[in-house]
Structures are given as structure tokens and as C-alpha cells.
């Protein structure tokens, strides 16, 4: 079925920049808090006030542009985007129109064939809007009686990243957003929290019959509040459009709203007619001309980016592409792994297994990120080293890890406190073995007679005497040497 159709997706991604103050005034940028408590005459749009652009926000935008391989404009302007909606007190949003700060870049994402380059059309600076709350009716705008506005968010520095229509499925869109998110996190320009709205994704999607040259009817999908929702919403929309083509029913160019619960998109109706935003240059803000010197300085301070890091993880640690994908999905996870691997003398693959198989499970249950975990990376290395040395068994190590996760104590301390230390000392073990043999002479004779079956019984006796702390491998070896050689 899928071979008969081709899907085309382009994304528009809004990212709130991590600055202390707003884009054009000194109000603090923060999430939540008392409504209308972080506003001032500038962001409330009082007559006679003047905006001044935040240098840090411009720098962050340049970092994003450079990391995406964009051309940086030598000269660009801010524009007023006029619209009639009460979430901006000025009745316009300051944005960039025909001269964005960054143009023509790309982001390389992992694909079945190795890597695929997704074109970036532009990256521009704008300001976020306030938050509306619709009262009455079913809580949605069309049926509400009136609305309430909180302008704390109005004026928060925002960057819009627009891709070329190079994405061919919901799955690929998911990969792109995951990669972009990791890139933005690595750049330190945003806290990239989709649940708090600091990273928001809108998609344009169309489906056409394979081989057709013209794109199908474009539908815009909004309200995808997690990376998973992006995949679900686009898969639903892809299927809906294919079915419409199959049935020969018409598709309309419209904006559709994704509903998290039902997993379906529905027409928003409200904004079908194209708006004329009457863009014009913002007279209160002078043009922006980032100097070559400034741009070069920022370029120099770019950190290692996820695509480079992926390659290095394969070559330096000999990890599989799947492991590398998991570890580099977030920069903080990648850094955590490296800190642990550097503190470990053995095969880094073992550290990866402990992180993916055990630590991620604990994080999932606790519902926290690795960066918030109480275990310091070198402590995981210490734990794995203790297993390698035979001080504790792998099973015991899992118990210790859970305790490290809970208390943040170092593994050595936990092992000592729990009396878990495995005894591998041959002399100590031998004394108990001799005791066990002396107490069970007939069993020992059977083994001596060439029947290794009851050996397990003797191992059990030794383990019991030693409260389970003997290294079973050593016990076996000594018993073998004593009775069977």
C-alpha cells in the first residue's frame, strides 16, 4: 500500500531561547508563576515605549544557524506581523519576514541508509505570545464565552526553524525532531521541554500518488505536544489522506488539530482563510548586522554536535549504531556515559549495557532524567569494576545499583553495609570446603568415585556456611581440584 503513495512533510519548529530576560525588555523569563507578574510597559505594548533586542537571544540564534550550517545574513530586519488576536497586547508580533538572520542550512539525521540530509529553509528570531484561557462552552475557543489572558510569556525570545519539505514519513519527522532537540540541547540555547512548550512543532503534510510531480493538498497539523505525538499525528494524517485519495474524496487545504487522547486530527475551521499579516519593517528596531568577527567567535565555541559525536562513539568506544543512537539522543546522557566510561578500565560496552538495561529502567520507574539521577558516573564504573573483580556477583550488583539510585551512596559503602562482599580468597574458602567434606564423607566418596552429580550439594553446603558470600566459581574450582583430579 505505502509504495503507491509518497508523503511530503515540512516542519516549523518554535524554540523558546534560554535567556534570563525577554526579547525586547528586561522582564524575567520563567515558566508558570503568578499571572501577569512578569510584564512591563514594553511587553504590554504601552504607547511610547521602545523595544531593544536582547544580545544573548541574537547570539543563541546565531549558534543555532551555524550549527545547522546556515548562511548568516550580513544585514537583516525585524518586521511587525499584525494580527487580531488578544494574545499579544501590541496587536502585532515582532518577527522577521523577508530577511531572516539565518538561511539555507541542513541537519543530517540517521536513516536506514546511514544518514539523510534535511534542508533548513530559514531560522529567524521572533517573540512568543501570551497564554489564552477560554472560558465557557467546552473550553475550546469556538464555543467559549470569553477568554482570559496572561502575558507573562508575551515577549519571550523565540526562534522559528523551518525545514524544506524533505521529510517523507511521520517516523522520519520523529527522528528529525529528536535530532534537532539533541542539537539544541548540546548548544545550550534552550531547555527544549516539549511538555512546557519551550519546543513546539507544527507540520505541513501532503500525500500524492507515487510518481506524481505536483505535491498533494497541504494540511497543517498543530498541537503535537511530544515527540511521540508528532509521529502519531503524522501517521494518522498520512493514512487519512491516502484513504481520501483512494476514495477519490477531495482534500482541503486546512489547519488540523491533533487530539492526544483519540490520536486523531480534526479540522480547526477557525483559521481557514489566509491572513494578511500586513508585514512592515519595525521602525523601533534598527537593522541587525552581525559582524564577521562575532560570527567567527561563536563558530569557534560550538560544542561537539550529535552527528560528530555519533561517529566518535562508534570509532572510539566500538559501540553499535543502536547503542550510540540511544546514548546520543540527549547530550546529557552522552556526557554521563563518557564520564562513566572514562572512569572504567574495561570494555565500555559493559557500561552501556548497565546504563541501557538497568539504569534506564530505574529512571523510568522514578520518572526522572539521567541528569537528575543521584548516581555519579564514576560510581557506576566502580560498581562494574567490583563485578569484574568478583567482589560481588552480577545479581548482587543490580541490588546495589538500585540502592545507589535511591541513596546516592558509593557502591563500595553499600556492599560493605549489606555484607555482600564475595569471598574469593582461596585459603578462606578451602577451610569451609574441608569442613563440608568432613561432614559429608559418603557424598565426597561418590564424587571421588567419578560421579560429579552431588558436587552441587557440596557447593551449596559451603555457600550456606559462608552466608552466600563465597565466590561460587572459586568454590567449584577448589572442589574439583580436591575430589576429581
Amino acid at each position: 500500500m505505502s509504495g503507491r503513495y509518497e508523503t511530503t512533510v515540512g516542519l516549523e519548529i518554535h524554540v523558546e531561547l534560554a535567556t534570563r530576560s525577554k526579547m525586547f525588555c528586561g522582564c524575567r523569563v520563567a515558566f508558570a508563576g503568578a499571572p501577569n507578574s512578569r510584564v512591563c510597559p514594553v511587553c504590554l505594548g504601552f504607547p511610547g515605549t521602545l523595544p531593544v533586542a536582547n544580545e544573548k537571544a541574537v547570539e543563541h540564534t546565531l549558534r543555532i544557524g551555524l550549527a545547522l550550517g546556515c548562511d548568516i545574513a550580513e544585514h537583516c530586519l525585524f518586521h511587525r506581523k499584525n494580527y487580531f488576536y488578544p494574545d499579544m497586547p501590541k496587536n502585532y508580533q515582532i518577527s522577521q519576514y523577508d530577511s531572516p538572520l539565518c538561511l539555507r542550512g541542513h541537519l543530517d539525521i540517521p536513516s536506514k541508509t546511514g544518514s539523510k540530509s534535511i534542508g533548513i529553509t530559514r531560522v529567524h528570531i521572533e517573540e512568543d505570545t501570551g497564554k489564552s484561557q477560554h472560558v465557557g462552552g467546552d473550553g475550546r475557543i469556538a464555543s467559549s464565552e470569553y477568554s482570559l489572558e496572561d502575558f507573562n510569556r508575551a515577549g519571550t525570545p523565540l526562534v522559528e526553524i523551518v525545514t524544506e519539505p524533505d521529510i517523507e514519513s511521520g517516523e522520519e519527522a520523529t527522528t528529525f525532531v529528536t535530532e534537532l532537540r539533541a542539537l539544541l540541547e548540546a548548544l545550550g540555547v534552550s531547555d527544549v521541554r516539549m511538555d512546557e512548550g519551550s519546543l513546539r512543532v507544527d507540520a505541513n503534510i501532503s500525500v500524492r500518488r507515487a510518481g506524481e510531480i505536483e505535491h498533494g493538498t497541504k494540511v497543517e497539523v498543530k498541537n503535537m505536544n511530544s515527540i511521540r505525538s508528532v509521529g502519531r499525528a503524522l501517521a494518522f494524517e498520512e493514512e487519512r489522506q491516502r484513504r481520501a485519495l483512494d476514495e477519490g474524496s477531495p482534500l482541503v487545504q486546512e489547519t488540523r488539530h491533533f487530539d492526544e487522547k483519540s490520536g486523531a486530527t480534526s479540522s480547526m475551521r477557525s483559521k481557514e482563510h489566509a491572513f494578511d499579516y500586513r508585514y512592515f519593517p519595525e521602525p523601533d528596531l534598527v537593522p541587525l548586522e552581525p559582524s564577521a568577527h562575532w560570527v567567527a567567535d561563536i563558530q569557534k565555541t560550538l560544542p561537539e554536535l550529535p552527528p560528530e559525536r555519533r561517529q566518535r562513539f562508534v570509532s572510539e568506544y566500538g559501540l553499535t549504531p543502536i547503542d550510540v543512537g540511544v546514548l546520543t539522543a540527549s547530550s546529557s546522557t552522552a556526557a554521563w556515559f563518557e564520564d562513566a566510561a572514562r572512569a572504567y578500565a574495561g570494555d565500555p560496552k559493559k557500561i552501556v549495557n548497565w546504563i541501557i538495561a538497568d539504569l534506564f529502567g530505574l529512571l523510568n520507574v522514578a520518572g526522572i532524567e539521567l541528569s537528575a539521577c543521584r548516581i555519579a558516573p564514576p560510581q557506576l564504573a566502580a560498581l562494574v569494576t567490583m563485578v569484574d573483580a568478583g567482589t560481588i556477583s552480577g545479581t548482587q550488583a543490580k541490588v546495589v545499583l538500585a540502592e545507589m539510585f535511591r541513596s546516592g551512596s558509593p557502591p563500595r559503602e553499600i556492599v560493605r553495609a549489606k555484607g555482600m562482599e564475595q569471598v574469593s580468597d582461596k585459603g578462606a574458602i578451602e577451610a569451609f570446603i574441608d569442613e563440608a567434606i568432613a561432614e559429608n564423607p559418603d557424598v565426597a566418596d561418590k564424587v571421588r568415585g567419578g560421579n560429579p552429580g552431588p558436587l552441587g550439594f557440596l557447593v551449596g553446603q559451603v555457600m550456606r556456611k559462608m552466608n552466600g558470600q563465597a565466590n561460587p566459581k572459586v568454590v567449584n574450582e577448589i572442589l574439583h581440584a580436591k575430589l576429581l583430579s
Partner: protein
Amino acid sequence: MVIERSVVDHVARLARLDLSEEERARMGAELSQILAHADRIQALDLDGVEPTSHAVPVVNALRQDEVKPSLEQEESLAGAPAVEAERFRVPRIIEEP
């Protein structure tokens, strides 16, 4: 182009400006002059002239990313025609189709 009194009243209402009789008369005259000036510019042949977005040769007016005190919540809501739950209450946004 002469701005009529009804247009002044309408614009004043849209801008929520409470103007006196005298001010309304003056605004009518001043707005007429401004529009007349715009008409003169409209009449010029400007083909091939670069649009001028700014009249001053200044670029990169940027501020440091520093937090300045905001208004107190009471102050920020003081001018609102209606307040509910610490927010600006606004009339319904979208009319039923």
C-alpha cells in the same frame, strides 16, 4: 484629504482615547495634514528607489540579557477594562460561523 469628525470619533474609540471636544477638532486637522503629506509621497515616482526602513544610519542596537523589575501584578492589570483570575478578561475571540 479631510478627516471628518466621525472618523476622528471612530479612531478615538478604537484606540480607547478619551478626547475632549477641543482635542477632537485639533486631531481632525492634524490627521488631515498627515494624510495630505502621505498623498504627496504616494504621487512621487519611486521606481528603482530602495525602500527606506530606517532614517538613521545605526545598526545593532542591542541590550545585555539582564533582568529589570517588572510591574506589580496590580499595576499591570490596573488599566484592564475587565479582570478575572488575575488575567485580562477579553470578549469572545471567534464568532460562531
